[in-house]
């Protein structure tokens, strides 16, 4: 392996570039099926096009499960703690939705990370659990997520959900322009159970919306007990 590295460094660089390109392609292309299983492609739909349920006291209606529990593979435990041992990172997780501009709402503090509560949960059978937070804040300066770019493929990430510890292994760390990022892929609710950890990066242009890029960590969920 050492021999390979020294004599074919150029080839390795190209391979890395190609891999990076493939991962970016996965990020940037709307919902197509990439080679690394980053998304499962269309359809995004749950396969439950119509259901009926009783509304409150409504009698005589066919009663099924209400919408919030309609996915039988959705254990309700929500993420509450994010740890990345190699970075010494440990952040409480807060449930967040969307802000008044339709973007994902994030905790004000850079020492907290938000979980997109309309998306998948760590113990769901499928879909991306999305955790996102500020890389820095005006009040506090750089936060723990500033270290994300130093993550390497294979690094373990742990998310506590309820009483369970769910472990993920990093599969890619990508910086991508906010103008090009494929948000439906980042927030996908289908495909393999995985973690998407998102923050900001790149150039900071205060007059142009601040950070120009997002940093996206993709990590695959490992079987429980590993």
């Amino acid at each position, binding site marked *: 392996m050492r021999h390979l590295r020294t004599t074919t460094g150029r080839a390795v660089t190209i391979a*890395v570039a190609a891999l990076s390109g493939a991962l*970016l*392609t996965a990020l*940037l292309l709307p919902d*197509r099926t990439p080679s690394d299983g980053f998304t499962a492609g*269309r*359809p*995004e739909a749950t*396969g439950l*096009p*119509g*259901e*009926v*349920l*009783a*509304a*409150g*006291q*409504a*009698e*005589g209606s*066919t009663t099924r499960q*209400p*919408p*919030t529990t*309609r996915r039988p593979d959705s254990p309700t435990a929500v993420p509450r703690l994010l740890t990345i041992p190699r970075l010494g990172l440990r952040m409480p997780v807060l449930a967040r*939705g969307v802000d008044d*501009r*339709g*973007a*994902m709402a*994030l905790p004000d503090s*850079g020492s907290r990370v938000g979980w997109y509560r*309309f998306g998948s949960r760590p113990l769901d059978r499928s879909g991306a659990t999305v955790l996102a*937070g*500020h*890389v*820095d*804040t*005006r009040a506090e*300066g*750089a936060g723990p997520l*500033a270290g994300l770019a130093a993550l390497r493929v294979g690094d373990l990430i742990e998310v506590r959900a309820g009483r369970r510890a769910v472990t993920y292994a990093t599969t890619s760390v990508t*910086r*991508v*322009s906010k103008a*090009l990022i494929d*948000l*439906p892929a980042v*927030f996908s609710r289908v495909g393999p159970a995985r973690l998407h950890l998102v*923050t*900001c*990066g*790149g150039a*900071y242009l*205060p007059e142009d*919306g601040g*950070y120009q890029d*997002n*940093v996206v960590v993709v990590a695959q969920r490992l079987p429980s007990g590993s």
Partner: protein
Amino acid sequence: MKNIIRTIVAAAALTGASLALAPAAHAAQDAHVSVLHAVPGVTVDVYANGNALVTDFKPGTLTDPMAVPAGDYDLKVVAAGDGADGKALIEANGVGVPAGANITVVAHLDASGKPVLTPYVNDTSAIAAGQARLTVRHDAAAPAVDVRAGGDPVFTDLVNPKEDSADIPAGTVSADVVLAGTDQVVIGPADLQLAEGVHTIVYAWGSAADDNLKLAVQTISGMHSAPSGVPGGTGGQAAGEADGFASSGWMVLAGGLLAALLAGLLTSRMIPRPARSRNR
């Protein structure tokens, strides 16, 4: 591109003619039809073009969506067991079912108490992140009503068989139905869980005169959208730090170009599908 779509629709129509109501595969050109029985007091069978569509159908029940080829359908509702030639309790001929549409056909009472069939096209367009879509359909033998959520009117002066719809923040609302312009509650209150990215359709049905007004609820999921972005930094302090990407900027660029190239290739081969085709 329009020609391609037309050709496909035409082919679908031809296929549809020969397939009639055979259980169809989930072809893109199929429509999805659910049937709601909202006539109190009678168990029925429903026929479409002479073929049994739903049998032993009890009031207050909604079928799962059925994939059917686009086309015109003659619908007939008879008392359970009376057969295709039985006396029609309700009949509607030439009901158009457009390709790809998501439709709910409701057997219900009109404002005067006479049984009728009303087909509604369900809106399966994308719903903004964080939002839920609420539709209310007045299918009851009752006068004009207002629908309130948390005591505030959401839809006003709704008359049979009209519907009204709005996208509102996801969550649980306490809904009730009052006589239009009054505080006189005729149905509810009932807690409605309006899930994000889901279309919740509420049917008010029954008869005010017979004091059996009820709600039936249908949900159609899978129309959720991603948030518009992740605004992950407010200070700029981290921008100065070595972020490990400094030397890989060209890779980002290369990846973007590759993606653009691939997107171009794929797009040129793709046949656009209507947004509602996402709801499968």
